[in-house]
């Protein structure tokens, strides 16, 4: 559905994207991870046609996105941007929905999908209130409802769960997993919340040093990390050691070893390790 081919982008002398290539298929969630300043927002802005890449092509449904006009492109592509305020605080939640529905050329009345999203994200009561009275999380939920209500084919979400309480975060994750399956929507998501990454049925892409790479947890599980427990001066000590089992065993051979066990890394640690690898 979306193919990003060898995108390069520089600002003045700083090359932010050094030729990134990836694709997203329908019914797939792609999680774009990277440290601050790694180029996630630049990538998203290029996909959203707000920035023009210096080199490379982005194709949506087999057609170069620069060939689409805004009406054609953004009736199929929707986004929720972290850097943007996505709702007007002097309007009520409902007025915001109606305003954006008119911009998108859809009806907000008797819209079953819209009602479903409002209900799933528990926003029925809040719709008549002015958005200025909303908490950060409620504003985020309203913005997500607006991004979803046009049933886009491609949805770009920049930190969608930022500021949400646990219950709302789980509803968002559940909703995303569900709509991707049901509606074959493609989702590109950025987040720094590893619990979100874990709970989403997502493919992970790592953006680092201006390049993007596919991230496979299995590759990192093979990392030889062990926890060695031994007794020294009547005290039990635990040390995390990297290396081959036989080498570690040889190194601690003279100590009173209790146990050498393989350290199982949490996904958060694995991703952090991947991001920091060459930094």
């Amino acid at each position, binding site marked *: 559905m979306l193919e990003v081919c060898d995108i390069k982008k520089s*600002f003045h002398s700083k090359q932010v994207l050094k030729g990134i290539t990836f694709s997203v298929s329908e019914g797939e969630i792609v999680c774009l991870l990277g440290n601050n300043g790694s180029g996630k927002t630049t990538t998203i*802005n290029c996909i*959203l*046609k*707000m*920035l*023009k890449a210096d080199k490379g092509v982005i194709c949506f449904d087999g057609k170069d996105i620069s060939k689409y*006009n*805004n*009406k*054609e*492109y*953004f*009736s199929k*592509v*929707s*986004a929720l*941007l972290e*850097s*943007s*305020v*996505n*709702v*007007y605080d*002097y*309007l009520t939640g409902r*007025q915001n929905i*109606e*305003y*954006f529905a*008119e*911009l*998108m*050329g859809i009806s907000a009345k008797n819209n079953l999908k819209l009602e479903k999203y409002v209900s799933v994200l528990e926003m029925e009561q809040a719709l008549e209130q002015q958005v200025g009275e909303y908490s950060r999380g409620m504003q985020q939920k309203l913005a997500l409802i607006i991004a979803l209500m*046009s049933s886009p084919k491609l949805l770009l979400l920049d930190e969608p769960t930022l500021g949400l309480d646990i219950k709302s975060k789980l509803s968002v994750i559940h909703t995303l997993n569900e709509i991707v399956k049901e509606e074959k929507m493609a989702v590109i998501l950025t987040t720094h919340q590893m619990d979100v990454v874990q709970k989403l049925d997502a493919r992970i892409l790592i953006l680092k040093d201006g390049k993007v790479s596919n991230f496979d947890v299995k590759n990192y599980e093979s990392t030889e990390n062990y926890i060695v427990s031994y007794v020294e001066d009547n005290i039990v000590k635990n040390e995390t050691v990297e290396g081959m089992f036989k080498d570690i065993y040889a190194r601690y051979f003279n100590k009173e070893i209790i146990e050498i066990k393989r350290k199982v890394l949490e996904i958060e640690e694995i991703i952090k390790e991947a991001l920091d690898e060459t930094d």
Partner: protein
Amino acid sequence: MKLIRAEFKKTLTEAVSYYPDYIVALITDLLLLAIVINTDGDSGQKVFSYVLWILAEGVLSEASMCISTEKQLGTLQNLMIKPCSIVGIITAKTLVWFTINFIKAIITALIASFFIKTENLFRIEYIYVGILVCVGIMGLSYILSAITLIFTKVASFVSIIGYLFLFLSGSIMKVPDYLIYTNPLSYGAHYVLQLVAGTNSFKDFTIFILISGSWLLIGYLLFGFIFKRSKQFKWTY
């Protein structure tokens, strides 16, 4: 049409929320009206030029101001990724503000009619003169909007350009002949004089259309050029 309706509803709600701003703007216009009436010259013609300026100034500045406000609120980026063109959004915002300023202009003219005695303050032909002036000024509004998209602070200087046009309207002072053909507002005010005197010809009307049309066309083309160029570098929302 949906875009205009959506913008209209939003602007009305905004106007209710921030009504003191609109009252201040109306009072400022009335104070300026008092100055205009008390300067030398034909009061009727000056008041019409002033009313024409109110309409033109609204078209000139509001689109740019709206973009600046949306940028400062942080909502512009979200508007840019909706299925409507940015030119469409700017035009819709301008049309909404043209309507609001049209009401303001009528109120101003009505109040002026209490203080000056003139037979030519309300004529049906003024409507197309007003529309032609605003169509031309719309071109400049496109350019200012495009620059505001890149440099937010440009909107702060738009009011200066607006007041420059007050002089060019001929409501404060007589416009030099060599400036009359340079912009739609000066020519519009000049055309009204001919209209009142009954000396206007088809040639004058054609010149009027050419001036306004060329301003709109140049503005539209420059907008496209500036907007396209702006995608080369980082936006400051």
